[in-house]
């Protein structure tokens, strides 16, 4: 590890911390008022409601809210599926790509509508500009807005008293998209264009390299997709290699801004939470728990990747840091980013549910791979995606308060809400859906020829490839370990099922909890009330996340990255399949 590497991490942490308060307060005003919308925008917003037949003054029960979420995304997935299937006869297809195969089209449609953006295809050789812009980019906006809307609905559950409604999904969706996501993305897109990211409808460019070879340079409307790809926690890149491609992420400065965009809304929403429940310390406590888990993981990944690869040691390759190279395990990493920014980007991306990559996680050391998988397995609570990170962490809060209540013999309370059996049941249901798919589907894939056919490696690393893919899908992260050939009907359909379950089967119980809480009255704090804003509660919360979330996956991790780590230490290598 170098001081320059730690300086990059410190600058990143300082910048993201500085943005939390203003952005969190702004989001709070957008969803909870007061916020004076500029007159033309207000008219536009009213026009949208009129067009859709929505009464913005009418709030919904949790069931209506959940049905609205499901109906909206059914239409979104179906239309994105159709768009890909007929892209060959639609405009903005200068490379004349054919229709996307049915199973891949379904996988991609579910992937982007669920804020996962798992990509079984290389974008630059599969999708037209229209599919990328009007399909994927639109779903990136809408899926992120849905995540934030659901989190806001849950916050209202904690904050409101004896009410029957948790807000209006259509209003939340519209306001978050118009006033939060779009303005930030416009600024971020322009910044990326300034950094060298293309934004054009011109076709691909035929170039002659310095050696005289012929090369086709793919380009397109990249910057507009790139900005929302990062801000939305979506992560689906225009190009196959995502943010490792110089047209998506030209250099270290754009890399820093891309990481900030990934964390921006996830961190700010903790401030929004504190503001909406009327106790800012509660938001800081959640952020502190997230930060503890994040920096613990980051330290392991950076230390592991900055160290030389033991497998290359017998070959006498110079892997030390120096003026001419960043040093460390540089397989699968861009020289312009080095070990430090690659480790930081990978940790940010897997902790946040974004899934963008600037290096190939398949080439990370086994211990780093373990941390990246664990970040996702912990239900994306370490910052997480916009909204989804916050509501997942609040699920763990409910479990932590319940466990603490059992220990001290009191009915669990959080923010003046007495948490009954039904709230805990729904929290556990939401927390168990994701592990069921993360553990169940690799078990199926590991014994079926169709599952084994896609592996790029044998031994524990091959198992890690499968485990990572389903983890990424069910946790709605979308990053790829690489190495796995996932564009097959088996993987496309099973991953689509994992992404669907990991998103919607979690959102429904979250909204159900919001609906139950919102109807309750507040209980004043008493002598035995557990304070939930101090270091003790942060420690209980971190412990709950690690024990409830982490131990579930230990056996599977032992078969993959842990076994690979010890095999590597003994010099055991596995043959290609």
């Amino acid at each position, binding site marked *: 590890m170098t001081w320059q590497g730690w300086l990059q991490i410190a600058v990143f942490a300082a910048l993201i911390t500085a943005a939390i308060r203003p952005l969190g307060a702004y989001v709070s005003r957008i969803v909870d008022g007061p916020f004076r919308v500029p007159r033309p925008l207000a008219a536009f917003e009213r026009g949208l409601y009129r067009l859709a037949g929505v009464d913005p003054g009418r709030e919904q029960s949790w*069931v209506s809210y*959940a*049905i609205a979420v*499901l109906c909206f995304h*059914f239409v979104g*997935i*179906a239309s994105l*599926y159709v768009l890909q*299937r007929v892209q060959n006869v639609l405009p903005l297809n200068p490379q004349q790509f054919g229709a996307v195969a*049915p*199973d891949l*089209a*379904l996988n991609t449609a*579910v992937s982007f509508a669920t804020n996962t953006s798992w990509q079984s295809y290389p974008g630059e050789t599969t999708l037209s500009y229209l599919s990328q812009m009007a399909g994927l980019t639109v779903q990136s906006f809408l899926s992120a807005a849905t995540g934030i809307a659901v989190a806001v609905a849950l916050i209202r559950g904690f904050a409101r008293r004896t009410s029957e409604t948790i807000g209006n999904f259509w209003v939340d969706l519209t306001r978050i998209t118009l006033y939060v996501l779009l303005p930030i993305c416009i600024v971020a897109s322009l910044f990326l264009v300034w950094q060298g990211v293309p934004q054009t409808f011109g076709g691909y460019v035929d170039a002659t390299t310095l050696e005289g070879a012929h090369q086709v340079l793919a380009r397109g409307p990249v910057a507009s997709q790139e900005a929302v790809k990062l801000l939305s926690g979506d992560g689906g890149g225009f190009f196959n290699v995502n943010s490792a491609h110089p047209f998506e992420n030209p250099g270290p400065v754009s890399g820093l801004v891309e990481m900030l965009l990934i964390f921006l809304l996830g961190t700010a929403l903790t401030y929004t939470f504190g503001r909406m429940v009327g106790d800012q310390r509660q938001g800081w406590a959640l952020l502190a728990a997230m930060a503890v888990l994040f920096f613990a993981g980051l330290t392991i990944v950076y230390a592991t990747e900055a160290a030389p690869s033991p497998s290359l040691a017998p070959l006498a390759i110079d892997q030390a840091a120096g003026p001419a190279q960043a040093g460390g395990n540089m397989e699968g990493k861009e020289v312009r980013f080095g070990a430090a920014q690659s480790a930081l980007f990978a940790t940010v991306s897997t902790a946040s549910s974004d899934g963008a990559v600037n290096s190939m996680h398949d080439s990370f050391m086994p211990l780093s791979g373990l941390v990246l998988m664990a970040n996702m397995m912990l239900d994306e609570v370490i910052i997480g995606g916009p909204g989804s990170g916050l509501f997942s962490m609040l699920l763990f809060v409910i479990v932590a308060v319940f466990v603490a209540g059992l220990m001290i013999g009191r009915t669990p309370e959080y923010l003046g809400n007495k948490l*009954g*059996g*039904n709230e805990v*049941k*729904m929290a556990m*249901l939401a927390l168990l859906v994701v592990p069921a798919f993360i553990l169940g589907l690799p078990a199926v894939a590991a014994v079926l020829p169709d599952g084994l056919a896609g592996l790029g490696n044998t031994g524990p690393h091959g198992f890690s490839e499968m485990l990572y893919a389903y983890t990424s899908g069910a946790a709605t992260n979308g990053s790829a370990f690489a190495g796995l050939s996932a564009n097959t009907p088996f993987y496309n*359909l099973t991953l*689509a*099922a994992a992404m*669907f379950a990991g998103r*919607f*089967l979690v959102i*429904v*119980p979250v909204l*159900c909890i919001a*609906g*139950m809480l919102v109807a309750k009255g507040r209980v004043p704090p008493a002598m035995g009330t557990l304070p939930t804003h101090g270091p003790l509660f942060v420690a209980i919360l971190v412990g709950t996340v690690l024990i409830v979330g982490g131990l579930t996956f230990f056996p599977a991790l032992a078969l993959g990255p842990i076994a690979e780590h010890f095999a590597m230490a003994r010099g055991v290598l596995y043959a290609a399949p």
Partner: protein
Amino acid sequence: MTDLLMIAFLVAAFAGAGAYVWGCDCVTNRFG
């Protein structure tokens, strides 16, 4: 034909999610 299968997959998934909403409501309202 394959398109119909994919649409059926999607419809079944959302129908299941709708039933899941109903199930959560039943569990929390009737047995709470």
